C-alpha cells in the first residue's frame, strides 16, 4: 500500500511499489487525465506535479511518491490559478485534440507558482518537455502569457472566433481517448510483429503460452484490409511472409499480466530472414505481391499542352525526401465487445465508416452488425485513417466473447503505422525572358512501402498538383507509387503534395534569379487567377485568392529582406512558396450527410458523423448548421459520430469536412428551417428563437406534435480524370503563400527560424480562431518535414531519436486570412487542414538558398546536409 496526497485527498494505492506512477494513477485511481505517449520521458504527456514539481509520471515508481503530494489535471480546477489557466487554454484554442493538454497545463502550473508573470522564454523553458503535434505551440504560449485577459466569447455566428464547443473535457482530464476507457474485465491484446523487414515465418504449437495466440487461421472472414474496395492487400495477421519491420503476424490475447509476461523467446515462431527489397523497380526484382509484378502499385499522369512555347531560361533538379511519421501523441488504442451477433468497436479513428466496412468483412458479418463508436482522437493527421487495432480487437472479442482492449506502445506505433511517402523527384521547368512559365516536367517515385494503403491516392494527387497554382502552358507529370519492404506509406496531411511542392518552388527560385525577377513577383506574375483554366482543363470561375495572398505578404517580404544579415557567421535568408490544394477526394464521390431534429419538447439536436480529430469540425459544422437554421449555436444539442447514431459524413481527410460536410450541415439547417417556416406559415426572413423548450417564429410560439427533421447531403461535383489527367478532380481549391525568415550558421549548418508569415485563402473563415490553429499546427509539421524529421525503420522507433518540433522550435507565426468566397462552399468556405503544411518546407528551403546560395537536394535539411550543400555550392 502506498499513501499519497492525491489532489489534496489522502489516498491509498494498492499497486506494487515499482508500478509507474502514471500507470497507478490511470489503472488504480481511475485518473485517466494523465496520458501516456511514450513511457520514456520523451513526450511529457504524463506530466504531473510531485510536491509541486513537474515530473514525468512514467519515470517515477509509485514507491517514490510515498507520502508526497501528487497533483494531476483532475485537481487543477480546484485552485483559482488552475481554473484561470484552463480558461485561457480554452479561449486561445491552445487545446486541439487535447492529448497533450494535461501535461502542458501541469508544466505551466509549476511555472506560474514560482513565476506569476513569465516571459516567452520562461514559458518555452518550463513547457519544453511536453510535445504537441497539433497546435504549433504558439496558442499555448499565448495562453500561459495572457492568463487574465480572456475576453467573453462572441455568440458563435459564422465568422465568430468561438472556443471549441467540445473543448472543456480536454482541459479537466475528463476527455476519453482510446486508452482511457474499457470494461474492467477486458482481456488484453498484444500484437506480435515482425522484427525483420522481409522474412518467412512459421508458427508452431502455442499451447504452452499462458495466453491465446491468434493467427491468420483464426480470422473468421477476410484476412485483409485496405483503403480501396478492390485492394485488400494487408493482412490482419500475415500468412507466412512478413513484408516490413512491424508487420503483424499474430496476437496474444489473455489476462493483461499473463500477456505482458510472455517473453519474445517464448513465442513459437521461427523466422527465415529474406533480403529486403530496396531497389524495387530494378529489372528482374522479385515482386512483393504477385498482383503487381513490377512492384509498381499505380502510376498517375498528366499531359497538358501540345508543345511548349519558346523558353529563355530552364532550370532542373532532383530532390529526395524521407519517411515522415505522423507522431500523434496518442498511440493507437481501443477495445471491442461482442453483443450477440453484433460487435462494437471503440477507439481512436479518423474514419469510422471505413472501419465499419473493414471490421464487417474481417469478421464475415453484415455491416449492420458492426458499430463503431469513436473515442476522442489524440491526433491523426492521416495516420488514423487506416485500421490498426480495430480488426484485431474485433476478432479477439468475437472469438472469446469477452471485451478485448489494446494499446500500442510508442515503439510499436512508430514501427507499424503508415508514414509520409519518401519521394524521389526529378523536375525541369522553363520560362520566357519576361519570366512567364512555359513548361514544367515532373517525374517522381513515391516509396509506398509494403502495402497499398493510400499509395494510389498519392500517385493520383501529385501529378495534378505538382506544377503548383500557376499558369503553365505545357506540363508533363508522372508519379509512381512503388512497393518496397519499408513501412506502408499512407495518408499524411497533403497526400504527397508537400514533397512535390519542394521541387516546384525550388525551380521557380532558380528561374526568378535567371530572369532577374524578385522571387515573390515571379510568383505573382505566374499565379493562377479567376477565369484561368488549370492543367487538368478545369475552368476556375471563383475563389482563386493566390494573388491576394502574395500581395498580403509583399510588405512583410520587403521588411524581412531588408532586416536580414548578409555578412558574418550567421546568415539571414527569406524564402517564399505557394501552394494550392484540391479539397476532397480526387475525381471521386465523397458525400456527407448531416441531420438536425427538433423534438416536440423543443430539444434541437445536431446529428454529426464527422469525426473531430482536434481540427475543430464539431464546432465549425455546428456554427454552419445553426446559422443556416437561424438559431444560435448554444441552442444545439450534439449527437456526435457513432455509426449507429449518425449518418455517414465520410472520413476526416483531404481537408473536406468544412467544405463537404459543412455544405451538408448548411443544407440540413436550411431544410429544418424550411420545415419550421412552412408549419408556421412564415416568410423566409422570419426570426426564430428557442427558449425554455418553446420555439418561436417571429415571437409566436410554434407547437409541434411530431419531431421535425432537416437532412442535408452534399457530394462535390467532380469529373474523374482521364488517362492524361484531364477532368475536374476537385470542386474547389485552397490557395496559400508563406514566407520564412531564418538564419543559417555557416560553421555548423544549423537553422534558426525567426518568423513565418502565412497568407491563406480559405474562402471564408467560419471560425478564425480555429483556422489560425490549423495554420500554426500545419506550419509546425512543415518545419519538422523541412528540418528534422526522418523515420529510419529500426533506428528511430522512439521520440528521442525521431525528433519532432518542440515548443522551442516554432518561431513567431503571423497568419493572414484571405477570403475569396467559394460559392459552392458553406457560406463561402473551403478547407484548411492540409494546405497549411504544404508551403512551409519549400519556403524554408527557399530561405536557406537565399541565405547561402545553396540548394538543398535532400530533406530534412539536417545540419550536416546543409553544410555539405554550402560547401558544394
Amino acid at each position, binding site marked *: 500500500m502506498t499513501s499519497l496526497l492525491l489532489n489534496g485527498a489522502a489516498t491509498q494505492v494498492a499497486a*506494487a*511499489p*515499482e508500478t*509507474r506512477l502514471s*500507470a497507478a494513477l490511470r489503472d488504480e485511481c481511475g485518473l485517466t487525465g494523465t496520458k501516456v505517449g511514450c*513511457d*520514456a*520521458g520523451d513526450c*511529457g504527456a504524463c*506530466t504531473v506535479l*510531485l510536491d509541486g*514539481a*513537474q*515530473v*514525468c509520471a*512514467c*519515470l*517515477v*515508481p509509485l*514507491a*517514490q511518491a510515498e507520502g508526497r503530494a501528487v497533483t494531476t489535471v483532475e485537481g487543477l480546477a480546484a485552485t483559482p490559478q488552475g481554473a484561470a489557466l484552463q480558461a485561457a487554454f480554452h479561449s486561445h484554442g491552445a487545446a486541439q485534440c487535447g492529448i497533450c493538454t494535461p501535461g502542458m497545463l501541469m*508544466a505551466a502550473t*509549476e511555472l506560474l507558482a514560482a513565476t506569476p508573470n513569465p516571459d516567452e522564454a520562461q514559458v*518555452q*523553458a*518550463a513547457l*519544453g*518537455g511536453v510535445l504537441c503535434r497539433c497546435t504549433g505551440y504558439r496558442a499555448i504560449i499565448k495562453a500561459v502569457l495572457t492568463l487574465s485577459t480572456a475576453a467573453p466569447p462572441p455568440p458563435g455566428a459564422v465568422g465568430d472566433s468561438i472556443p471549441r464547443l467540445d473543448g472543456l473535457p480536454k482541459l479537466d482530464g475528463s476527455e476519453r481517448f482510446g486508452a482511457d476507457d474499457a470494461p474492467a474485465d477486458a482481456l488484453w491484446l498484444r500484437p506480435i510483429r515482425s522484427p525483420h523487414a522481409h522474412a518467412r515465418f512459421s508458427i508452431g504449437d502455442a499451447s504452452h503460452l499462458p495466453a491465446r495466440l491468434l493467427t491468420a487461421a483464426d480470422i473468421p472472414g477476410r484476412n485483409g484490409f485496405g483503403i480501396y474496395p478492390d485492394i485488400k492487400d494487408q493482412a490482419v495477421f500475415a500468412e507466412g511472409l512478413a513484408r516490413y519491420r512491424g508487420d503483424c503476424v499474430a496476437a496474444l490475447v489473455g489476462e493483461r499480466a499473463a500477456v*505482458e*509476461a510472455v*517473453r519474445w523467446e517464448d513465442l513459437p515462431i521461427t523466422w527465415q530472414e529474406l533480403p529486403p527489397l530496396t531497389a524495387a523497380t530494378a529489372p528482374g526484382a522479385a515482386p512483393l505481391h504477385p498482383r503487381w509484378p513490377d512492384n509498381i502499385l499505380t502510376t498517375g499522369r498528366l499531359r497538358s499542352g501540345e508543345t511548349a512555347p519558346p523558353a529563355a531560361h530552364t532550370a532542373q533538379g532532383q530532390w529526395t525526401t524521407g519517411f515522415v511519421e505522423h507522431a500523434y501523441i496518442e498511440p493507437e488504442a481501443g477495445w471491442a465487445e461482442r453483443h450477440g451477433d453484433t460487435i462494437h468497436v471503440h477507439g481512436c479513428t479518423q474514419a469510422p465508416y471505413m472501419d465499419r466496412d473493414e471490421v464487417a468483412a474481417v469478421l464475415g458479418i453484415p455491416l449492420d452488425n458492426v458499430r463503431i463508436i469513436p473515442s476522442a482522437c489524440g491526433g491523426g493527421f492521416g495516420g488514423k485513417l487506416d485500421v490498426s487495432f480495430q480488426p484485431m480487437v474485433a476478432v479477439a472479442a468475437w472469438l472469446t466473447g469477452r471485451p478485448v482492449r489494446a494499446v500500442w*506502445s510508442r*515503439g510499436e506505433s512508430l514501427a507499424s503505422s503508415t508514414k509520409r511517402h519518401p519521394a524521389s523527384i526529378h523536375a525541369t521547368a522553363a520560362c520566357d525572358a519576361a519570366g512567364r512559365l512555359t513548361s514544367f516536367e515532373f517525374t517522381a517515385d513515391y516509396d509506398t512501402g509494403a502495402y497499398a494503403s493510400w499509395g494510389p491516392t498519392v500517385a493520383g494527387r501529385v501529378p495534378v498538383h505538382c506544377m503548383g497554382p500557376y499558369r503553365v502552358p505545357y506540363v508533363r507529370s508522372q508519379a509512381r507509387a512503388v512497393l518496397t519492404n519499408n513501412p506502408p506509406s499512407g495518408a499524411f496531411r497533403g497526400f504527397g503534395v508537400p514533397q512535390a511542392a519542394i521541387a516546384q518552388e525550388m525551380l521557380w527560385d532558380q528561374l526568378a534569379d535567371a530572369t532577374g525577377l524578385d522571387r515573390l513577383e515571379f510568383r505573382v506574375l505566374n499565379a493562377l487567377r479567376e477565369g484561368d483554366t488549370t492543367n487538368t482543363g478545369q475552368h476556375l470561375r471563383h475563389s482563386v485568392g493566390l494573388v491576394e495572398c502574395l500581395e498580403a505578404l509583399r510588405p512583410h517580404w520587403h521588411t524581412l529582406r531588408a532586416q536580414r544579415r548578409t555578412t558574418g557567421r550567421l546568415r539571414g535568408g527569406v524564402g517564399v512558396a505557394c501552394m494550392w490544394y484540391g479539397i476532397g477526394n480526387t475525381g471521386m464521390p465523397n458525400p456527407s450527410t448531416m441531420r438536425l431534429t427538433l423534438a416536440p419538447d423543443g430539444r434541437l439536436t445536431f446529428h454529426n458523423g464527422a469525426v473531430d480529430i482536434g481540427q475543430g469540425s464539431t464546432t465549425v459544422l455546428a456554427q454552419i448548421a445553426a446559422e443556416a437554421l437561424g438559431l444560435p449555436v448554444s441552442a444545439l444539442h450534439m449527437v456526435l459520430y457513432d455509426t449507429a447514431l449518425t449518418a455517414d459524413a465520410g472520413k476526416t481527410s483531404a481537408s473536406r469536412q468544412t467544405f463537404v460536410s459543412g455544405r451538408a450541415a448548411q443544407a440540413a439547417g436550411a431544410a429544418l428551417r424550411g420545415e419550421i417556416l412552412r408549419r408556421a406559415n412564415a416568410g423566409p426572413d422570419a426570426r426564430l428563437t428557442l427558449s425554455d423548450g418553446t420555439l418561436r417564429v417571429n415571437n409566436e410560439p410554434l407547437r409541434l406534435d411530431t419531431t421535425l427533421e432537416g437532412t442535408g447531403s452534399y457530394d462535390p461535383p467532380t469529373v474523374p480524370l482521364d488517362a492524361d489527367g484531364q477532368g475536374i478532380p476537385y470542386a474547389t481549391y485552397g490557395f496559400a503563400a508563406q514566407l520564412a525568415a531564418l538564419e543559417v550558421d555557416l*560553421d*555548423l*549548418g*544549423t537553422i534558426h527560424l525567426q518568423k513565418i508569415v502565412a497568407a491563406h485563402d480559405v474562402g471564408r473563415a467560419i471560425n478564425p480562431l480555429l483556422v489560425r490553429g490549423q495554420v500554426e499546427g500545419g506550419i509546425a509539421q512543415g518545419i519538422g518535414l523541412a528540418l*528534422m524529421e526522418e523515420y529510419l525503420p529500426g533506428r528511430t522507433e*522512439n521520440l*528521442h531519436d525521431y*525528433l519532432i*518540433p*518542440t*515548443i*522551442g*522550435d516554432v518561431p513567431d507565426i503571423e497568419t493572414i486570412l484571405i477570403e475569396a468566397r467559394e460559392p459552392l462552399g458553406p457560406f463561402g468556405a473551403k478547407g484548411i487542414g492540409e494546405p497549411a503544411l504544404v508551403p512551409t518546407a519549400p519556403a524554408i528551403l527557399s530561405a536557406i538558398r537565399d541565405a547561402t546560395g545553396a540548394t538543398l537536394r535532400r530533406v530534412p535539411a*539536417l*545540419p*550536416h546536409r546543409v*553544410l555539405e550543400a554550402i560547401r558544394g555550392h
Partner: protein
Amino acid sequence: MKPAPFTYARPADWPAALALLAEGARPVAGGQSLGPMLNLRLALPERVADLRHLPGYAGVSMQGETVRIGAGTTHAAIEDGVVPGRLGEILAGVARRIAYRPVRNRGTIGGSFAHADPAADWCAVLPALPGHAIALGPEGERRIPLAEFVLGVFETALRGDELLRAIELSALPPATHFGHWKFCRKPGEFSKATACVLATPGAAPTAVLAALDAAPLVIADASALLADPTAEAARLVATLALEDPWRAALARTALRHAAEAAR
C-alpha cells in the same frame, strides 16, 4: 509495455544499500535513465534498490574550502542554487541546460555521473573541475579524482560493490572563468558535442571535450587552447580521428567556443 517484473527495495541506511548491491540489486536514484530502460525492457534487473531515502544522499555541505554534493542532489536543486559561490554559479549554468525541467526535477548528479552516458552533461563538465568522486564500498569511502572517473561509454571507475556517495569539489574564486558550449539539434536533446574550459586564477586551465561516443577527452593543461582556440581546437580534434566530418566540425566548434568564453 510494462517493465518486466522486478522487486523494489528501499534500504534504510547505507550498509543495507551496500548489502542489496552485493546481492545483485540495481541502484536507482532519479530513475531518469534507468526508468526508460526498464519501461522499454532494455534493463531487466530482478531487484531495484532505491537510494533516494538514504541519509545524506541529497544535499550540499561545506567543509572549509571543500563543497560536498550528495550524489542524490537533483539537477534542479543545483540549477536553483544549492551550491554556493562561483562554483555554484558554474554548476547552475550547466544544470539549467540538462534536458527539461521534469527530468531535472528527478535526475541526480550522482546518477548521471555513475551512468556515464557519453553525451551526459555532468560527464562533460565534472572532469574539468578540481575534486573527487566519493565511492562507498564494503571497506568504506574511496576517493577517485573526477578526471579519472569516467572510463568509457557507460563505464566508470566504480567497482561492482560500490555506490557513488558524493562529489567533492573545491570552492572556486570569484574570478574563475568558465566556458561551456554544447550542441543539441533541438532544445533539451542529448548533446552531440560538448566542451568546457575552466580557468582558475593561479592554476593551469583545464578542459573537457565530450559527447564523442567515447570517454570524455580531459585536457589537464589547456593553456594552449586558451592562447589560440582555433588552432588548438583543430589540433586536438585531429588527434581523435573522428570519422564523421560534421561531428568533427562540431567538436572543433565546441572547443573553440568554450575556450573563447573562458578567456
